[in-house]
């Protein structure tokens, strides 16, 4: 037990207690021996913690061991090779990782302004019942299955967003990202060139990560100290002035942490991306153009046909994805914990 207090030995501190002769010999222990039920509980709880750790470590260790086979064959080219054909020993995650990051960044471009605005709306503007309703709605939306977002993306967004993508590429085509061209460099305008793109997948994934991001940001904003808010108002600030000078600096850790948590979720999203994109194995800088890929979509696409070695290669891809999301999540939580808003909450 961690709270053990070392009682001084009776010999050294024998008090002059003529009036209490019985206690002269033996001092009462300050810590009682744990009862049977206590020790049973402690060992059961300890075992539960151990099992949890064992499951988690099993995943990590198993992935690493199985992936090492493929990683050993591919070596460093695993990170630079674009093609994926483990059967001919030519495989790498350059293109899928590029696609994953592209989709996640597009998702963040959509999600962060929406999440920031909504979090400020909930914590600063809305009041009373409206506020609690909105909070519930955000939590509810975080639980909507990703396959539902995927359905919406395929059957609604795909058809309706093509004109927008086409418009962007027409008027902002001079920015390399937004250019949609064929192999010879000529600009494409037919709508089939704009479907199943990283842009559409990014929009859907962005919508999926907004609830997570919003709730982290809102949590941070709502902890901004009331005294500083009132001080800002007392100095004649408007509400927006107060938000800029008190709430946003206070919640900066929450903004960064929420964004990174959203990024972590966006990187790992599978089904919605898999349903929308048409998979390719080359790096596609033109985000509006048909064809993209992601690590998770690659796994979902190839796991069935894989041989033993192919499975090992997929494991290696999954391991890289896991490590990336792990680093992002830990960075996010340490940023949140170190910021002013996080120090009080945990």
């Amino acid at each position: 037990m961690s709270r053990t207090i070392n009682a001084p030995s009776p010999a050294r501190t024998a008090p002059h207690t003529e009036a209490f002769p019985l206690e002269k010999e033996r001092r009462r222990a300050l810590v009682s021996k744990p009862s049977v039920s206590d020790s049973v509980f402690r060992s059961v709880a300890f075992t539960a913690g151990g099992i949890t750790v064992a499951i988690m470590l099993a995943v990590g260790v198993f992935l690493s061991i199985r992936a090492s086979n493929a990683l050993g064959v591919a070596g460093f080219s695993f990170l630079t090779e674009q093609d994926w054909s483990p059967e001919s020993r030519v495989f790498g995650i350059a293109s899928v990782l590029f696609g994953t990051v592209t989709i996640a960044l597009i998702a963040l471009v959509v999600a962060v302004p929406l999440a920031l605005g909504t979090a400020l709306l909930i914590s600063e503007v809305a009041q009373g019942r409206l506020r609690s309703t909105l909070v519930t709605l955000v939590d509810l939306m975080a639980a909507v299955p990703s396959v539902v977002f995927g359905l919406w993306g395929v059957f609604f967004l795909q058809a309706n967003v093509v004109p927008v993508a086409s418009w962007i590429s027409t008027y902002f085509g001079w920015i390399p990202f937004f250019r949609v061209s064929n192999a010879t460099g000529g600009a494409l305008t037919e709508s089939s060139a704009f479907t199943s793109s990283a842009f559409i997948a990014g929009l859907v994934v962005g919508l999926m990560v907004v609830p997570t991001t919003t709730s982290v940001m809102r949590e941070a904003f709502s902890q901004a100290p009331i005294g500083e808010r009132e001080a800002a108002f007392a100095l004649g600030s408007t509400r927006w002035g107060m938000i800029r000078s008190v709430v946003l600096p206070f919640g900066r850790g929450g903004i960064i942490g929420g964004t990174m948590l959203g990024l972590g979720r966006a990187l790992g999203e599978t089904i919605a991306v898999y349903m929308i994109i048409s998979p390719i194995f080359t790096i596609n800088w033109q985000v509006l153009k048909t064809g993209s890929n992601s690590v998770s979509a690659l796994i979902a696409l190839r796991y069935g046909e894989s041989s033993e070695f192919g499975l090992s290669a997929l494991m290696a891809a999954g391991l890289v994805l896991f490590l990336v999301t792990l680093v992002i999540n830990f960075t996010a939580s340490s940023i949140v914990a170190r910021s002013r808003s996080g120090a009080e909450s945990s």
Partner: protein
Amino acid sequence: MTFIPSPDGAPIGPRRRVRGARVDDRFNLLGAAAAGLALSTLIFGWVTPLSGGLGWALVAFLAFIGFYALLVSITSDFQDVKDRVMAVLLTSAGVVLFGALVFVVAFTLVRGQEALPHLNFFTQSMEKAGPLDGLEMGGIAHAILGTLMQIGMALVITVPLGILTALFLNEVGGRFARFVRTISDAMTALPSIVAGLFVYSAIIVLITHQRSGFAASMAITVMMLPIVIRASDIVLRLVAGNLREAAYALGSTRWRTIWHVVLPTARPGLATAVILGTARGIGETSPVLLTSGVTAVVNTNPFEGPMISLPLQVFDFVKSPEPNMIARGFGTAAVLILLVLTLFAIARLIGGRAPGDLTVRQQQRVVAASLRDLHRITIQGDRRFELISAEKTTTPDTNDTKESSS
């Protein structure tokens, strides 16, 4: 010596209004909105290269913001204009977000209406129904059953393990507990497809050699466990320390304190944690895609043969180009959403309050119990009890009982 500036000469500006709106603010908003819509309708198509409804809405919105800033600036200074415009922008971010999210759900529910009215959709499996059959043939009974069995098996593992681990983190503590917390936080970062791949290659390829409901429930367990641990951890942390100290001061052991004080206090919160984890687990598609296998028949044996679940059934239906299959896919998705919504509503209903925060009826029960104790323990209390019950019979208003119990 402190110098206090004399307030005499300093001008006192008008008082800032932080909340609330005057009548002319409302008119400003309405007027700007009308002007924005009108301008957009007028110039749309000539000046702007955009086409379609989205472009029109975008132009209208920009015009609305411009007009609103102009209207506010007539009566207020620059700071106020900024404040008003930002308030409008924040509100529109919220409206766009909630509009989009509600639309996603509503879209699925509306498209699902084609399949949902058929009763056979819930009672039959797809065993005898081909892709070209109408909606009055076949259904998703097998997927509903599969989801229930898979989530049930996952819950059997996650609930005891998750809550015990959370208890370990909170009540036992120590260095190993911190390590467990770090690991379970790391686990929330595990992409769901990687969890599926792990179960596929560790259980299916190495041990069972076939896809099964059991493998799927293992994958769901790996995904749900960190969620349940984290949510229960937060709930247990909220249990007031003085409740625990009171129990220890009365001489109870650690286990009795947990069983009789901590767990009952945190019960609604723990239930919420479990239900939210369930809602997440039900919707997981990608781990199930790799582990459960696709089937069209009812399979009640989780260890033998493929067992499909609702999200995977959605995914499988919409892969088909047949309109009837797509209608079935939307119907299945609607069932899935309704299931998640129901779980969420239950979680809100029982978990909406903080630990120790009682409902009116629970409060009345506690008051009655402590009154009985008072009656049992003291003669004085006996008398007061009689007095109070005499009073109670004369006046039905029960304010006195609360006072006497405290």
